[in-house]
């Protein structure tokens, strides 16, 4: 009798397995999970929680990613088996289909607005920093837009690489430097060299003589214009003076 109840009591002293609390907090949405995924961009570490994807980086190692996450997001992070459809969503997102949800908690309203706007830029196109600033109704905050994009916790998926400088410089890139930015844009079908030549020549917009509409050079609506109908425009004022109106899709100027 005594021995049995003593044993039962000892059974009550058994400990929960290692990592129980972390796994539980992840399930309750109070910690994030992460895993490494093979993508067109190479191995990418992705963190997620019940609200969506919360961070991504091409880190050297799991430890490096955890460090990045700690500094950037600050919540507890646990390695985990990803949900069944996450790998497919990641591939789709990187090939231009939008299927991902994001968790941007912890960022300021301004940062969130910048990232949401950036997310609207289609694959294969680029926009200037000033465009993002104007679209979110902070037209003077061009530098702040740059800072917000530099701190983008979810590069590649929220395409901060599609925001470029108007002077033709490729601009810095938190997701792996200017070289990586150029490589990703090229992979997405942007003719980076041509874009830089135009910028250096002082050209900002492409106008189409027949429609009298002007666009950003990468806007998909201008892509099918015949060469002979294309005019290159230096600024908004001269475009308007020549009778062009801004494109309603890429919105190169307030309409």
């Amino acid at each position: 009798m005594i021995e049995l109840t003593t044993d039962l009591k000892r059974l009550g002293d058994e400990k929960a397995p290692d990592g129980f609390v972390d796994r539980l907090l992840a399930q309750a949405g109070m910690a994030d999970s992460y895993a490494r995924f093979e993508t067109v961009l190479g191995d990418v570490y992705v963190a997620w929680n019940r609200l969506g994807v919360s961070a991504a980086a091409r880190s050297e190692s799991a430890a490096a990613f955890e460090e990045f996450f700690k500094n950037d997001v600050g919540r507890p992070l646990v390695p985990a088996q990803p949900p069944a459809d996450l790998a497919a969503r990641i591939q789709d997102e990187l090939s231009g289909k939008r299927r991902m949800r994001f968790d941007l908690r912890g960022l300021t309203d301004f940062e969130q607005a910048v990232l949401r706007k950036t997310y609207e830029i289609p694959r294969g196109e680029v926009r200037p920093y000033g465009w993002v600033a104007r679209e979110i109704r902070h037209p003077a905050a061009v530098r702040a837009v740059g800072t917000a994009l530099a701190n983008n916790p979810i590069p590649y998926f929220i395409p901060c690489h599609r925001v470029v400088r108007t002077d033709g410089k490729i601009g810095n890139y938190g997701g792996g430097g200017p070289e990586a930015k150029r490589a990703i844009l090229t992979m997405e079908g942007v003719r980076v060299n041509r874009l830089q030549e135009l910028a250096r020549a002082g050209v900002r917009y492409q106008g189409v003589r027949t429609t009298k509409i002007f666009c950003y050079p990468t806007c998909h609506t201008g892509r099918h214009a015949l060469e002979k109908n294309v005019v290159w425009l230096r600024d908004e004022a001269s475009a308007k003076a020549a009778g062009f109106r801004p494109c309603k899709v890429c919105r190169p100027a307030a309409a």
Partner: protein
Amino acid sequence: MEGVERQFERMVREHQNRVFALGLALTGNRHDAEEVAQDTFLRAYRALVTYPPSRIRDLKQKAWLHRIAVNVFRNRLRGIKPRLVELNGSESDHAPGPEARAMQRAQMDDLAVRVAGLPLRYREAVVLRHVQELSYAEVAQTLGQPVGTVKANVHRGLKLLRGDEDDRADD
């Protein structure tokens, strides 16, 4: 909101072993025990976020978690078939330790399997009384049964565990 999350985390850290051990004794294996413990805390969390602060402050956490755990366990029995017993649990939580610890662990797994083999009403009563060391009154409250019933069930459960078949209640 922030406050509830921190309170919840503290609650989990404080009670994780107790709730896991309860799951282990009720289910007989570590894998299911972790699931029961996890579901218990997730349910607790979902309830906590709806409670006003005063109710959270006055909560008798231990008794409350026991009640949730027993309900989680009963729902599982209703829903899914118990797994075949896996004596050593899953690989991931098998921390390689000294031999003595491994033996103790094997003994405990063995005992858990025996306890989990008890008929349900004896099992719940024995586990809450002798594994979790609740008082008879607390067990009665947790299970929603009269104290006399609990005492009888504990007594019979212990007899069965000792392999004393003679005194077995007819069922």
